[in-house]
């Protein structure tokens, strides 16, 4: 019932706020290129969400600027920068689309993808280091992985390391809400989990001794250490996770276009270049061959 007055006011404000969008759609020359490009990649005219996107000429990317070095804001310009941001721009280059960023909270990324499935509204793709998990795959479709990270424990300098599942029991661990780290610790059981809006919100608490550890991606953790947080990595990761773009379900053409863009930036070396730029000279775009189990393997083991 909230909808009735809401819709009326939304109409009033929507006209004011969204007025700016109209002008951009006039860029037909670029829109044409994107549509033609898409047709040549797919071998047929794009349909569904892909058609809406190539016709209007821009792709809306969901991305959370709270995760350096994947995505954060530049001090001088206030613009987004980071690995995920570079990857999104490469997608734009590969498909001839303009890239627009939206910065929803992490837990509304998937609802937003689903909400825009038919109309192309909200955001069309998450390029935000989302781990491919079977549960999420029920709600969204994933592209091929574009890079890999590991779930690491971050502890205070000099505190006991937490590297085994036994050591996790009874510990108070901070995680970002709805991250694989939370799912993993849930599956372990007996862990006192504190979930925060983002992994970063847990850092000050860890620093003050309110947590025994924070579980996050290895390079996110490493970045916090260089900035002067008195933390250290626990050494041994629990699992590695493939990270991919996510889109609304049942959009085969959009999925094919995005997979094409990932292959394009892999083949021409631009993906590796971006990885080396943001990740200390490492090429994180290749699957780790270090004997660390994958997220799926660990979860299957825990659940059996």
């Amino acid at each position, binding site marked *: *019932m*909230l*909808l009735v007055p*809401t819709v009326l*006011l*939304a*109409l*009033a*404000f*929507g*006209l004011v*706020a*969204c007025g700016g969008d109209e002008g951009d759609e006039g860029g037909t020359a670029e829109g044409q290129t994107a549509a033609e490009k898409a047709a040549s990649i797919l071998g047929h005219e794009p349909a569904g969400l892909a058609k809406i996107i190539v016709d209007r000429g821009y792709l809306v990317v969901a991305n959370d*600027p*709270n995760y*350096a*070095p994947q995505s*954060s*804001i530049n*001090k001088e310009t*206030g613009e987004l920068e980071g690995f995920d941001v570079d990857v999104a721009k490469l997608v734009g280059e590969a498909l001839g689309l303009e890239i627009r960023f*939206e*910065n*929803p*909270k992490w837990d*509304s990324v998937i*609802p*937003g993808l*689903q*909400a*825009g499935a*038919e*109309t192309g509204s*909200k955001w069309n793709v998450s390029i935000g280091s989302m781990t491919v998990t079977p549960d999420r795959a029920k709600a969204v479709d994933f592209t091929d992985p574009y890079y890999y990270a*590991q779930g*690491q424990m971050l502890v205070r*300098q*000099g505190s006991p390391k937490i590297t085994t599942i036994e050591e996790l029991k009874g510990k108070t661990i901070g995680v970002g809400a709805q991250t694989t780290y939370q799912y993993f610790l849930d599956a372990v059981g007996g862990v006192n989990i504190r979930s925060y809006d*983002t992994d*970063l919100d847990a*850092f*000050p608490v860890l620093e003050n001794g309110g947590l025994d550890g924070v579980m996050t991606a290895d*390079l996110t953790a*490493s970045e916090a*250490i*260089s*900035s*002067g947080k*008195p933390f*250290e*990595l626990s*050494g041994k990761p629990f699992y*590695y996770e493939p990270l991919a773009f996510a889109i609304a379900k049942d959009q085969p053409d959009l999925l094919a276009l995005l997979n094409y863009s990932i292959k394009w930036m892999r083949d021409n070396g631009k993906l590796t270049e971006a990885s080396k730029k943001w*990740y*200390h*000279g*490492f090429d*994180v775009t*290749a699957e780790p061959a*270090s004997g660390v189990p994958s997220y799926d393997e660990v979860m299957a083991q825990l659940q059996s």
Partner: protein
Amino acid sequence: MKKLVLTILALVLVLGAMAPAASAAGKLPEVTQGSPYDGMAYEWGVTAVQVYYMPGSSPVDPLKCELYVNGERVTPLGDPVDSQLAQGASLQFNLPEDFQPPKGELEFRAVLVTKAGDEVSYDWTYTYGGQKRKPLIDFALMRDWFTFIAQGALVTIELTVLSILFATLLALLGALGRLSKSTSAREAWTKYRSWTYMVGWVGRMVPYGIATFYTSLFRGTPLLLQIIFIYLAIPGFNNYAYGAWGFKIPEPGPFASAAVALSLNYGAYLTEVWRAGIQAVPKGQTEAAWALGMTGMQTWRRITLPQAFKIVIPAIGNDFIALIKDTSLASTIALPELLQKARLVGGRTYDFLSPLLVAAAVYWALTIFFSFWQARLERRLERDTARG
């Protein structure tokens, strides 16, 4: 012939001697970067030095690894920590509390020693600004990011002004609705005993019902819920409508969603304010206007509304100031207003205290500014009364 045999023999010997040496060396670790490095997003915190490397065939022995700053060996706090990353590895030297490097360009050298006994050294430089650990309140950070955060104030003000305008108008309509019921059904029937009158009475109950429902709903649910609901529910509705009926309604972005929710929520509260304001105008005023021959509309426009307006101004001013602060709830839908911007800076610099203090100062300044004008406006209205 003899010479040839000797040469071959010598070659075999030499190669034989070299072969074990070559295999012992194996693949050496390769350092890809040392941290701190120039161009980092923030100043070095002087708590740790990290060396990123690709492991060789023999693992690194952290206990034997060494760190030099400006040629002097640094004794790390505890053992260096070797961590396996998704690609490569990092070796972290924790620095002792009392470690204080000089300001200016620092020369770092890390020596990685493998379990097989091979050494790899890596040199790099970093220009150190002289800031020892992060201060509790980082004024340099506040200065650097002030403009970025303060730009959020524009969005906050825009949102506040638009919302209070719409809320006031909505509330006026709501108040008229709330006031359209004069008597209960039983009273009306016992008083008039007329079915025609009762039909009119039911007609007047419709706006009353709508207004009562509206204020009850929007005062009875959290503002935060309303903001998130509007932001996420309309796209969901559209998605369904587009699939089922082939149309969609305009979708509010973060700004429009927040403005709609704030207008509706504050409109509900201000409805009661307007109702009280209108009722506070003495009945004699209306009766006098009628006695002078004014029509209902004239009475309303010239007598009741201006007097009610004067009564409700302080309350609207109060809500305006509360609204300034409630716009911060829009940060949950990622509207780049003051609080959201401060949090972004926190995410970037790993320091939440300093940017939040900047945001708090800006909010406070805004409320002081608007309170001042509210007081001026109220004094102004007082003066009119004294004159009248």
